[in-house]
C-alpha cells in the first residue's frame, strides 16, 4: 500500500517534469551552461563576505549588550532588556529595508548596499547573540568570580581570562547555529540588490525563464556551503573541548 502510494507520487512528479525540465541552462558540458553556472557561483563571494562581517559585528555587539544584563544595577539591566526586546521584535527583512531606504534619510548619510545589508543582519542577530552570551556567562560557577576576586583580578581581566573563555566554550554550538542562520538570512539582502547567491539566481531566472532549474542549483549551493560550515563548527567544538 505504502509502496504504491510512493510510486504514484513519483509518477505524478516525473510526469509533470517530463519534457519540461530545461537543464540545458545549467549544463556544464555546454558553453552557455558553464557561463550560467559561473554567474550563479559568483554570488558566493558576497554571501560569504556579508555573513562573516555581519556575524563578527553581531558577536561583538552581542557581547557588549550581554554584559549589562549581568550587572546588579537595575538601570543597566534595563538597557539590555530594552535593546534585546526591540531588536528581536523587528523582522529581518523589514530591518534590511529600513536600514537601506530609511536610515540614510534619518541620519543624513549614504550607505551602500553592502553595508546596509551587513548592518541590518548584524543588528538583528546581535540580540540573539546577546541572549546566548548572557546564558553562557550565567552558567559559569560563582566560585570562579570569587577566586578571581581573591587573586586581585579587576573586572575586565576576570571577564577576559576567566569567565568568557569558559562561557564561549559552552555556547560554541549555539554560536555555530547563529552562523548557519546568518548564511541563510543573507539571502534576504538580495531585495536591496546585493549581488549574492540569491540575487544572482533571480537575475538568471529573469533572463532564462527557467526558475525550477536555477533555484534548484541555488538550493544546492546553500546546502553545500552550510554543510561545510557545520563540519567546520563541529571540528572547532571538538578541538576546544566543551568542558576542558
Amino acid at each position, binding site marked *: 500500500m505504502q509502496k504504491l502510494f510512493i510510486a504514484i507520487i513519483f509518477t505524478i512528479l516525473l510526469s509533470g517534469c517530463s519534457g519540461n525540465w530545461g537543464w540545458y541552462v545549467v549544463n556544464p558540458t555546454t558553453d552557455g551552461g558553464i557561463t550560467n553556472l559561473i554567474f550563479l557561483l559568483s554570488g558566493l563571494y558576497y554571501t560569504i563576505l556579508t555573513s562573516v562581517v555581519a556575524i563578527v559585528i553581531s558577536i561583538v555587539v552581542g557581547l557588549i549588550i550581554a554584559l549589562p544584563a549581568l550587572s546588579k544595577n537595575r538601570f543597566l539591566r534595563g538597557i539590555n532588556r530594552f535593546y534585546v526586546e526591540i531588536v528581536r521584535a523587528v523582522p529581518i527583512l523589514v530591518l534590511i529595508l529600513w536600514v537601506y531606504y530609511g536610515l540614510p534619510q534619518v541620519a543624513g548619510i549614504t550607505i551602500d548596499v553592502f553595508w546596509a545589508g551587513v548592518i541590518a543582519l548584524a543588528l538583528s542577530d546581535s540580540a540573539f547573540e546577546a541572549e546566548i552570551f548572557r546564558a553562557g556567562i550565567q552558567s559559569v*560557577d560563582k*566560585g*570562579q568570580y*570569587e*577566586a578571581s*576576586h*581573591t*587573586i*586581585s*583580578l*579587576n573586572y575586565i*581581566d576576570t571577564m577576559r*581570562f*576567566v569567565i568568557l*573563555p*569558559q562561557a564561549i*566554550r559552552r555556547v560554541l554550538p549555539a554560536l555555530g547555529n547563529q552562523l548557519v542562520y546568518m548564511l541563510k538570512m543573507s539571502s534576504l539582502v538580495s531585495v536591496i540588490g546585493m549581488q549574492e547567491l540569491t540575487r544572482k539566481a533571480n537575475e538568471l531566472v529573469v533572463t532564462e525563464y527557467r526558475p525550477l532549474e536555477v533555484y534548484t542549483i541555488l538550493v544546492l549551493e546553500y546546502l553545500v556551503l552550510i554543510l561545510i560550515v557545520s563540519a567546520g563548527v563541529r571540528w572547532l567544538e571538538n578541538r576546544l573541548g566543551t*568542558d*576542558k
Partner: protein
Amino acid sequence: MGRIINVENISKNFGDFQALKGVSLDVSVGERVVICGPSGSGKSTLIRCINGLEEHQTGTIEVDGVLLDQSANSLSMIKSKIGMVFQQFNLFPHLTVMENLTLGPIRARKMRKSDAVDLAMEYLERVRIPEQANKYPVQLSGGQQQRVAIARSLCMEPTIILFDEPTSALDPEMIKEVLEVMTELATSGMTMICVTHETGFARNVADKMVFMDCGEIVETAKPDKFFTNPDSQRCQEFLDKILHH
C-alpha cells in the same frame, strides 16, 4: 605582636536571615585562628566579609591599617593582602596549573611572565606537586587540586590567608596531604584564619579557637582549654558531636 585584623561588631543579613549578629574578632600578626561551629553558624560569612567577598551592613573591618569601606581603593588594597582557599577549590578549569598560578601575578601584580613562572614553580614545590605544572585541574586528584589552590593564593604573596573548609570536599585519604601543607604554612609564620572541623589540625597549629553558633561568637579560647574544658554549654555539645561520632 601587632594586630593585623580588627573586626568590630559586624552584622550581615541575607534578606530576613541574620547571618552575623555583632561579631568582633582580633587577629595578631602571625596568629593562627581556627573557627568552628555548626553549619549555618556564620563562619564562612565572617571570613568572606573580611576579604570583601560579602558586604557587611554594620560594624567595621580593618585589615593591616586599611578600613574596608567598599570603596574600590580600600577593597583592592585589602584584596592584595589576603589570600583565600575555598572548599570547592575554584581552580580555573580551562587553564593549566601553571596558568592558574601565574594569572594573578602577571595581571594583578604586573610581574614579567618568566618571573611569575619561577615564582609559581617555587610554590608548586612547596606544595609538593611541581611535576603537575602543565596539567589541567580535571586531571588532578582533589587533594592535588586543593594544593594547587593553596599555591595559587601564595603566588599573590599575601600577608594573611583564609581557609574556608579546605578539606570538606575531599576524600579521607586526601585530607592528610592538604593538612600537611597547611601545617607547614602555619609554621612558616603566615597569619591564618581557618574554618575547619579538623580537630587534629586545630590542636596542632591553632593559637586561638573560635566557636560560632547562630551568627555569634560563643567562645574564644586556647586549643587546650577549648577541647578539654570549654566554658559554654553549646560549645561542649558541639564538641561531643564532632569528637565522638
